[in-house]
């Protein structure tokens, strides 16, 4: 394998891993706190992409505005999703298969969001202006677009910001408390009725920001959330449900596998090879890389 390939794989791993991390970390946050798999996360990416299209292409405004707008819009959407598709089920959670039912309800929300976009915008793939255009050449033949670089940096920054939020702020600590022991958190006076939508809003906002960047790379269209959802699911389950560190490791691991596969066997094979790897891993290590879902490690 040539040096070019190795550098290419390394760069691609960091970029893919960072963006996977940003989308997946929201899902982990949600699983750790609410104990559900939020299937609407992918559509939040799509919403972010369309907002970026609207602000950057249609209105021609500043990219920072796109990021802020996407954050706010998807935060609200995420909170609403919790209130509509999860909160009504909370009361019955011991009587039903809570995880499967919320899987379906959040999936229904995704279906609605995707198809409203379809009705509003049609199936066309719309170009989204990159936040930053141009790029540099890192090594012979290894080009690094600024868009990708910025995406990776912003993703890492946001993941770090989330970590600080959880570790040092009152609400962040409350979220961790709910993830570790719901009853005890309630006894401390944590208003879980407000905390749940806040958490889902926050997680969706992360996905929305990811969508601003991904739109620049992969267009804005109604189904734009399908692939990110799948990739986030893979990362989250691979890394151990409910474990934030695990999600980050898994994101880069998956990024590495995919990048390596792309270089070695080509882009068409990379995703199926990824699935093949997952099949194998799940057969050998049923709980993924890190930890069982009962041990939430936010």
């Amino acid at each position, binding site marked *: 394998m040539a040096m070019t390939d190795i550098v290419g794989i390394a760069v691609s791993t960091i970029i893919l891993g960072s963006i996977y991390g940003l989308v997946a970390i929201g899902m982990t946050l949600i699983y750790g706190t609410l104990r559900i798999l939020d299937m609407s996360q992918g559509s939040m990416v799509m919403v972010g992409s369309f907002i970026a299209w609207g602000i950057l292409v249609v209105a021609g405004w500043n990219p920072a505005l796109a990021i802020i707008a996407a954050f706010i819009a998807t935060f609200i959407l995420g909170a609403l999703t919790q209130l509509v598709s999860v909160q009504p089920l909370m009361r019955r959670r*011991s009587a039903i298969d809570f995880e499967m039912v919320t899987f379906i309800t959040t999936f229904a929300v995704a279906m609605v969001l995707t198809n409203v976009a379809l009705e509003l915008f049609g199936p066309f793939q719309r170009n989204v202006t990159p936040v930053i255009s141009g790029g540099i050449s890192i090594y012979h033949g290894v080009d690094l677009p600024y868009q990708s670089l910025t995406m990776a940096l912003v993703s890492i920054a946001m993941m770090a910001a989330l970590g600080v939020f959880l570790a040092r702020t009152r609400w962040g600590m409350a979220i*961790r408390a709910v993830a570790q*022991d719901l*009853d*005890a*958190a*309630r006894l401390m*006076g944590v208003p879980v009725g407000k905390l749940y939508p806040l958490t889902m809003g926050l997680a969706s906002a992360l996905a929305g920001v990811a969508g601003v960047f991904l739109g620049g790379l992969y267009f804005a269209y109604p189904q734009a959330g399908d692939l990110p959802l799948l990739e986030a699911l893979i990362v989250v389950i691979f890394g151990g449900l409910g474990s934030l560190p695990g999600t980050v490791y898994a994101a880069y691991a998956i990024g590495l596998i995919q990048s390596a596969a792309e270089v070695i066997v080509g882009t068409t094979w990379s995703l199926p090879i990824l699935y093949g790897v997952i099949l194998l891993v799940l057969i050998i290590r049923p709980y993924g890389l890190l930890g069982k879902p009962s041990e939430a490690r936010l």
Partner: protein
Amino acid sequence: MSGPMLEVAGLSAGYLDTTVIAGLALTVQAGEAAVLIGPNGHGKTTLLRAISGLITPSAGRVLLDGQDVTGRPAEQISALGLVHVPQGDGLFAEMTVEENLMMGAFPAASWRDRRAAVARVYEQFPVVAERASQRARTLSGGERRLVALGRALMRPSRITLIDEPSLGLAPVAIDAVYEAIGRLKESGATIVLVEENFTHVGAVADAVHVVETGTIIASGPYAELSADPAIVQTYLGSL
């Protein structure tokens, strides 16, 4: 003199299709330490959870200092001054001791208030202060129980519910725990204590209530019930 701090009337509660407590009545006066004893699985823990709002009663009423709190969620009831130290200890295992304490003062308005409360707890529990930056799950059972008690002191409370504080602890640890509970009582707190181990309770208990098959079948001052041979034999083993 105002009414009782806690009044429970005709309370029924349980889980899914099972009723664990039925028609239970209990009164606790301000400053009193009431002890609930009885066989395992007969509803003592369920009663505490129904009072603190973790589970919703199916019938009956709970009045906290005259205020009807029946059916309100735990978050709200705790804001009214009810502190519940659950069975086990209810600590946040992945958080440090200090973070656990800070969570104890979650509703407190300012960061300064919370830090002041932490300082007070450290003063009372030097062992806890020593372990301040350790993760809760690395502590021994006795230390965790002390942290849980310290956490319970982090905010002003009108009534403190403590569920089996000596469960699974070595005798030395139990001594420390009950010393802390004793200090709590001396400060004038109203306490409801669930306990299997009757040895240490004597120093703290004002009233004893026997809980069996979901209701209270006997009540009275500690001196009286501990002298009753039937009760002693059935529930208390040896004193």
